[in-house]
C-alpha cells in the first residue's frame, strides 16, 4: 500500500473529532471514529454466570475472547470473569436496570462509556494496517470473524474485535486516541 500524506484527514492538532475518516481512494483501508456508545465493564465470578444470565436476560458469552451480538448490545468476554458491554447510548440505562435484577450474588457493573473511543478499521488492507502496531496474527484462520481480545497496539492497550472479514472494531482509552491515530497514520503512509 502507499498513500498520499497530503490527503490524510487525520489532523492531530484537531484532536479526535467525530465523523472524520481517513479514506485513501484506490487504497484498501478506511479508519473511522465511531459515534457515542454506552459501555459497561462487568465483573462476575465464573460460578455465578449462569444465574446472572438467567436473571438479567443478558446472554453472556462464557468462552474467553468471544462475543455475543444482538440488536441491543455487543458483549465481549475478555476474561473468565470480565465482560465489556457496548450498546447505543439510549440502551445504557435499560442495561443497568436489567443487571439490577440479579440479586443472588455480588457483581460489579461500572459505566465506562466515556473512558474509551472506538474506531472502525475497514477494507482489504485493514489487518495489515492494524499490524503496524499490533503483533497478533490476524489471518482469518487464527483471528476469525467474531473473535475479540484485549491486546496491545504499540504502547497502548486496545480491545480488538473482528466484526466481519474486513472490518475491525477497536476500543481504545480516549486519551490514547491521538497517539493511536498518529501511529496508524504513519503506518498507513509507509505501506
Amino acid at each position, binding site marked *: 500500500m502507499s498513500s498520499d500524506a497530503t490527503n490524510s484527514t487525520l489532523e492531530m492538532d484537531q484532536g479526535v473529532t467525530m465523523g472524520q475518516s481517513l479514506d485513501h481512494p484506490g487504497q484498501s483501508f478506511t479508519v473511522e471514529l465511531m459515534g457515542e456508545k454506552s459501555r459497561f465493564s462487568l465483573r462476575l465470578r465464573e460460578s455465578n454466570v449462569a444465574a446472572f444470565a438467567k436473571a438479567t436476560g443478558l446472554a453472556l458469552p462464557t468462552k474467553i475472547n468471544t462475543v455475543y451480538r444482538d440488536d441491543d448490545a455487543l458483549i465481549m468476554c475478555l476474561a473468565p470473569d470480565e465482560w465489556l458491554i457496548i450498546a447505543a447510548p439510549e440502551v445504557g440505562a435499560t442495561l443497568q436496570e436489567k443487571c439490577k435484577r440479579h440479586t443472588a450474588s455480588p457483581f460489579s457493573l461500572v459505566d465506562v462509556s466515556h473512558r474509551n473511543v472506538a474506531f472502525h478499521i475497514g477494507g482489504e488492507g485493514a489487518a495489515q494496517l492494524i499490524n503496524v502496531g499490533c503483533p497478533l496474527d490476524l489471518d482469518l484462520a487464527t483471528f476469525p470473524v467474531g473473535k475479540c*481480545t*484485549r491486546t*496491545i497496539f504499540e504502547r497502548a492497550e486496545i480491545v480488538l474485535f473482528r466484526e466481519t472479514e474486513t472490518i475491525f472494531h477497536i476500543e481504545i482509552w480516549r486519551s490514547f486516541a491521538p497517539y493511536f491515530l498518529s501511529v496508524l497514520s504513519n503506518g498507513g503512509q509507509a505501506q
Partner: protein
Amino acid sequence: MMMIECPICNEKRPELEFRYAGEAHIARPENPSALSDDEWAKYLFIRNNPRGTHFERWVHAHGCAKFFNAVRDTVSDKFVMTYKCGEQRPSPETIAERSS
C-alpha cells in the same frame, strides 16, 4: 518476538502482553504474627535464583489480565510450559519431556 502460551486464553501471545510477577509457589504463612522477624523477612524477600529451571508467576497484563505459572529455563529463556495458578508444580519428568 517470544511467544508465551497463556493457559487461560489457551493461545500463544506475544511477550509484550505479559509481565513477570516473581517466583511461583510461595505460600503466605498461615499465621504471620507467630513468625519471627527473620522468618517473615525470608518469606518476603528471599527467593531462589536458579541457573536453569525456574518456577515463576506471570500475568497476562494486556490480555485476560490473569496470573498464571510458568516453567522457564533461565539460561535459554525458553518457556518450557505454563499452567494455571493452584495447580501442582510440574514434576521433573514432565519438565524433561516438555523440554526435549
